[in-house]
């Protein structure tokens, strides 16, 4: 009898140690990745790294300015395409919860979220690259925008759903038209949640490479033309990392450091936003 109790307690101890062991072990890759990024990435950084174009092979002192600019252009395009549409869909879904179209739209958003990014790149390739006969920043932005869309819709719907209907009823009772109630009362009340969603969506696509392979393609020079191929940070990392040259590897480590820092910054600011700037009801 006593032995049975002991063995159960020992089992309990073993299980607890296993859980702690596996949990701690799973932090190891993170430490390794961040460690290498810090060591190898930081040493590649200097001011030339941020302001100069990649130099021809063999010449030292190249930078990644074109990729930084290109990434900003792509994210800006994606933002412009995805945010208005995502917001409208989110508002529709929170206002018409039961309608048949809302059901289909919700399902589409869910499926869209699960589509592998490479397939999105493939379809945008045949929508925008083949007809226009050129890889372009527009196509890259559209691919990223399509990946941002589900996150924004979800965030907008979830936030707006939580806003008490009393707020809406009060506004309508004062004679404010419906569209103004939604745009001036309901949406601002949920703004922190929506902005958080947008930041998370940007963080999600900022590091995406696969959809850019056949859309934005890459470009060793400056370009701010929407209809031309453009370089981006993740694509530059991929291209340089798989090259055989030591100097390019160094640039890729630096670029990885910058990219991870950027994504991290977006994630952290999204988190702070939800904590600090929340409208309470």
């Amino acid at each position, binding site marked *: 009898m006593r032995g049975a109790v002991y063995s*159960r*307690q020992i089992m*309990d101890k073993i*299980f*607890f140690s296993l*859980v*702690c*062991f*596996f*949990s701690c072990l*799973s932090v190891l*890759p993170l430490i*390794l*990745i*961040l460690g*290498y*990024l810090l060591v190898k990435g930081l040493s590649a950084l200097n001011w030339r790294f941020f302001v100069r174009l990649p130099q021809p092979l063999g010449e030292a002192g190249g930078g990644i300015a074109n990729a930084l600019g290109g990434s900003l252009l792509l994210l800006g395009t994606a933002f412009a395409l995805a945010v208005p*549409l995502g917001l*409208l*869909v989110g*508002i*529709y879904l929170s*206002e018409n919860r039961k309608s048949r*179209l*809302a059901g*289909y*739209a919700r*399902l*589409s958003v*869910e*499926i*869209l979220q*699960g*589509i*592998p*990014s*490479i*397939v999105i790149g*493939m*379809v945008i390739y*045949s929508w925008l690259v083949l007809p226009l006969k050129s890889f372009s920043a527009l196509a890259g932005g559209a691919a990223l925008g399509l990946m941002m869309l589900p996150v924004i819709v979800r965030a907008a719907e979830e936030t707006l759903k939580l806003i008490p209907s009393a707020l809406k009823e009060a506004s309508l009772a004062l004679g404010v*038209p419906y*569209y103004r109630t939604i*745009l001036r009362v309901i949406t601002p009340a949920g703004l922190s949640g929506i902005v958080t969603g947008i930041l998370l969506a940007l*963080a999600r696509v900022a*590091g*995406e*490479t*696969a959809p850019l*392979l*056949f859309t934005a393609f890459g470009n060793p020079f400056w370009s701010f033309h929407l209809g031309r191929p453009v370089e981006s940070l*993740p694509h530059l*990392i*991929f291209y340089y*990392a798989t090259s055989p040259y030591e100097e390019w*590897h160094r640039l890729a480590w630096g670029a*990885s450091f910058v990219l991870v820092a950027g*994504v*991290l910054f977006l*994630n952290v600011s999204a988190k702070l936003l939800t904590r600090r700037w929340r409208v309470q009801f």
Partner: protein
Amino acid sequence: MLWSLQSRENIFQRALYGSAFLVVAILILFFLTLLFKSFSAVWSNGWGFFTGVVWDPLAGVYGAFPLLLGTLLTSALSLLLSLPFALSIALFLGEFFRKGLFSAALRSSIELLAGIPSVVYGFWALFILVPLIRRLEILLGVVPLGVGVLAAVLVLAIMIIPYAAALSAEVIKLVPQDIREAAYSLGATRYEVIRRVIMPYARSGFFAGILLALGRALGETMAVTMVIGNATKMPSSLFDTGNTMASLIANELAEATDPLYVASLTQVGLLLFGVSALISLAGKYIVRKYSVEI
């Protein structure tokens, strides 16, 4: 006043309706594009697409079985490998240490891990993981390639841990406190409470988390393509090179010129789309079906 109030109301309503309609239309168009672009390949490859083991664009033979196997193998193995870690993290965050320094540290590091871009994972794996595997291969006496299925499995496992863990931890937290306490009051140890009470209760959430991780593993492109070796053949062992569906598209679409070649690649994309859509639907079904009981 450019427009009357009524027409502004109308425009707003229409914009809302139209945007919801547009999202549905985008998805349908997406599917139709893949379907039409791959139609000629579906017609000409026939069942050979699923059973053929030779993918040779020069000869015009498109058998995708090695790719299907590669995708299935890497996702299944990485999922298996990540399960103990994901479950431990979920229990750590959801049951053992709900608050405090430990859980905050672990939670932030998991979130960090989820935020690292896949190309950075691939880069890191190529320069850190692959040399390690090469050393292991020399020890074992196999051809020291370094790149291969094992490298892909390891990096995928690291990448999907946060996805399965985060959802499972949330589900474990949702288990009502009173049934936990009831079990403790009967004299159950913590391990027994977890195994007999929490696990059965949170099962649907675990499945949803695992499905999410699986969907991510199936579609992951960059990290895999950088370390798997990109050889479209049947991998003979874990250390051999291979290829996956997503990685094949990434490597070959930009260079494909032959219409049948492009169509065959699109067929691979269609298959990926179908599988990921099924996984999304299954996840939704599981959550809806089992969350009603809770």
